[in-house]
């Protein structure tokens, strides 16, 4: 199951990744996906292991970490927004 992962701001900078194609074994929640990413270690673990202040958008709409992620979804993780 392929999804597109996007990272912004502080996450993008610290992970060194803006976007990547990711293989998800099966549908899961944002919480589960972050736990998977945390297993990559280093900065991934630092940012996404038991995270606070991680927001998620699924297909360009604000979602929660409980929402289910499906095949072909674009999933973006980012810190609280600071526009305006």
């Amino acid at each position, binding site marked *: 199951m392929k999804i597109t992962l*996007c990272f*912004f*701001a*502080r996450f*993008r*900078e610290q992970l060194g990744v803006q976007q990547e194609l990711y293989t998800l074994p099966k549908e899961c929640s944002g919480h589960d996906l972050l736990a998977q990413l945390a297993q990559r270690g280093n900065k991934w673990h630092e940012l996404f292991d038991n995270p606070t202040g991680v927001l998620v*958008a699924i297909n*360009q*709409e*604000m979602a929660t970490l409980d929402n289910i992620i499906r095949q072909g979804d*674009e999933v*973006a993780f*980012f*810190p*609280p*927004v*600071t*526009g*305006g």
Partner: protein
Amino acid sequence: MKNHITIQINNFDVKNELAQLQLMGNVGAIVSFVGLVREQASHGQVTAIELEHYPAMTQKSLENIVQQAEVQWPLLGVRVIHRVGYLAAHEQIVLVAVASQHRQAAFDAAAFIMDYLKSKAPFWKKEYLAGQIEGHWVEAKDSDEAALARWV
């Protein structure tokens, strides 16, 4: 199209934007807000900021916020312009301008749109201080999230 919502690098002219709203039929009130890069931060003097955004989502997000305002107040037109990229101190960041028949709707809708933009629109600010090479990401304020409470 009566609304104008853009994300852009270039500066905007408030006079021109308000002039567009003045053309609307039966307009009796126009309220505008301009956000600027403030030069004094708690930890030093800001020389510039850099604004990152989520291109595929930002337009949709701003349109959604404006739509929510239109559902709650009788509006004649809304213009929202948010700049991105590298902005020096004193530069304009964002414009929210609202036209309506009467003033209450214009005041309330403009405040609503700004409050929601601050909490929901996918932009992130990086601050550069005088005497420092590395910029740092601005933290979201609890007060911004708390500001939404008055609209519930």
